[in-house]
């Protein structure tokens, strides 16, 4: 439920969301080669489908996001990938909103870019054997934390009325942060063993 639906935000906020997203899109797209487009889209849709998984947790279940995983696998390409995932979710599942596409891509896409940065730094600086698990976990967990914080900030800026909603949002995502920290670490380790070229390139 991290996506903000239509009708909540003030026009100034969602319009500036569109503008910022546009700027970031132009920048990240210019860094992508056209030959890489099929590969990036494939990984993007794989991440998209796995984020539809429900993991049972106690009596209920949680819905994973895998924003950090997108960053680790796609690098800068993660931003357009997240943007398109938000668009598809709004149009195919009616999840999120149309006017909030800009702001939702920011709250999900920026954490993806940041987790990419964290992952690269960890792999570069550390030399111990378990650094891929560590980097993956860190990137996966921080991405969700940031996504929740950014969404909460947007809601609080919109109006004091939404503080109750923010509390609900943060509380319901604490388990997601824990689960993704564990899972993304495991996936990163697995990919590093089985198919290391899928992870983002890190130049030593």
């Amino acid at each position, binding site marked *: 439920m991290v996506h903000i639906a239509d009708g909540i935000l003030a026009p100034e906020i969602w319009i500036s969301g569109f503008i910022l997203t546009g700027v970031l*899109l132009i920048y990240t797209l210019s860094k992508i080669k056209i030959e890489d487009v099929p590969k990036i889209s494939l990984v993007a849709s794989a991440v998209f489908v796995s984020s539809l998984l429900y993991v*049972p947790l106690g009596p209920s279940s949680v819905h994973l996001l895998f924003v950090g995983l997108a960053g680790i696998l796609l690098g800068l390409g993660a931003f357009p990938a997240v943007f398109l995932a938000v668009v598809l979710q709004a149009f195919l*599942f009616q999840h999120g909103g149309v006017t909030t596409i800009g702001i939702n891509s920011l709250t999900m896409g920026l954490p993806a870019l940041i987790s990419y940065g964290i992952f690269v730094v960890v792999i570069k600086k550390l030399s111990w054997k378990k650094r891929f698990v560590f980097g993956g976990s860190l990137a996966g967990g921080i991405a969700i934390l940031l996504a929740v914080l950014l969404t909460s900030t947007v809601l609080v800026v919109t109006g004091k*009325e*939404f503080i109750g909603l923010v509390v609900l949002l943060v509380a319901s995502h604490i388990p997601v942060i824990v689960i993704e920290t564990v899972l993304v670490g495991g996936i990163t380790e697995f990919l590093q063993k089985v198919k290391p070229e*899928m992870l983002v390139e890190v130049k030593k």
Partner: protein
Amino acid sequence: MTHFDIDKYAYLKSPFHNFDPRAKVLCFLLLIFSIVLLNDIRVLLIAFISTIILVLISKIPLLFILKRFKWVALFIFAVLVVLPFTVPGENAFYIGFLSVSHSGILLATRVSLKAFSVMLLIFPMLSTMKFVIFIKTLEHFKIPDKLVQMISFIYRYIFVVSNEFQRTLRSVSSRNVGKKTRIFRHHILSNIIGMTLVRSYERGERIRIAMLSRGYNGNMKTLNSFRMTKKDLIKCSIIIIWSISLHVIVLTKILDLARVVNSV
């Protein structure tokens, strides 16, 4: 996967099914944005009713729409439950020890009317054509080529990947990894997801090589060509006029005038 059947009813016949896709997408986006910008709750109600009429015209079965409302409903539910209790304001009434504020109810109603109207409008816009045509439409809007390429690939690969996912899950369950052996122990689950990523990646590589060998150069060719007709122009102008007049109603305060006349 049943999730991805937004264009399941694209074969029906209705005024929106034979609407020029470019005009249709633009008009409906305009209407969506104009509804979200409304703030008067009575005008929002009028807009909501008009979106229901649009859905009825599009002949998309209502049951199909209701089934897809899970996410919106969940969100609206959260809004409806939380806002009336947490928004400060004059207290309308009490439920037990909780106070329900008048402004909270108003805000919650406004938000849910907007969210529901937008979600309803997506159906006459997108369910009335194949999703591939929608992607083709985006090309006409001068959206960067790489982005259009990516969305068309992502949409097509979603089906490939979810097939791979189902295959992996089937092979997992046929090896007796059930609830009792705790399938969701983290390393098993992360290996399942990792394996699916690897499998889809390899399959995608083969698809890419096959496409390259058939002369793929970054363009998708389809046989559809778009044509605007007079009827399209009429439909277009009706929707545009309606979305503008919603705001005219607010600005000219016609609804308040009625009340003034009544009191006189």
